């Protein structure tokens, strides 16, 4: 009974891992930009690795293979994001650098945003003849 449950769980984990892996590969092929491609590959890589190795760990049972799979999982968990970060950093130093984003301060620098007090003063100046 419990073996069948474990077998079913491992099958579900492997199937989900396959789905995430395939969606990541489609994103890697079809996205238009380098950074979007890196996003698709980097995000799905970690999750698919976790699911597939978790499914294999469920199949392994208590053995040395479980420990080795755990070591592989831990290592891929740490190195995947580190490799993605190093890749994005290297790309930022190249001619494929992203254009700098405008911050909020730069956007509002040229024209002062209208404030409530300025509105009141302007209305007072316009409506002096009414009083």
């Amino acid at each position: 009974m419990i073996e069948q449950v474990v077998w079913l769980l491992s099958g579900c984990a492997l199937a989900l891992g396959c789905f995430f892996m395939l969606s990541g590969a489609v994103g890697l092929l079809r996205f238009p930009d380098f950074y979007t491609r890196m996003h698709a590959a980097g995000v799905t890589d970690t999750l698919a690795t976790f699911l597939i190795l978790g499914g294999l760990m469920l199949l392994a049972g208590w053995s040395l293979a479980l420990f080795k799979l755990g070591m592989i999982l831990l290592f891929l968990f740490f190195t995947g994001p580190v490799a993605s970060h190093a890749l994005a950093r290297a790309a930022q130093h190249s001619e494929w650098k992203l254009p700098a984003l405008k911050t909020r301060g730069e956007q509002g620098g040229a024209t002062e945003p209208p404030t409530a007090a300025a509105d009141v003063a302007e209305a007072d100046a316009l409506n002096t003849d009414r009083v």
Partner: protein
Amino acid sequence: MLAATIIALLVVMAMALIRALLGPSVYDRILAVNVFGTKTVLLIAVICFTFGKPEFLDIALVYALINFVSVIGVLRYFEFRSGSGGEVMDD
């Protein structure tokens, strides 16, 4: 399910290779090679369980180490160079 996982892994590796061949920049190629290496580790691990030989997991572990070190090394090489030419860009 293990056989289906192997097939999906092979399909993903083929797609990563297509991106590595097409990739307009050198960083696309490095990304595709990184994905290919990670999927190779998973493929070795799944093949171990399909054929019932858990000793092969050591190979997967060593392959993960080599893949990470090689990607970081290639990135250090290309970090301050232009992708196509090879002259050093002053940053």
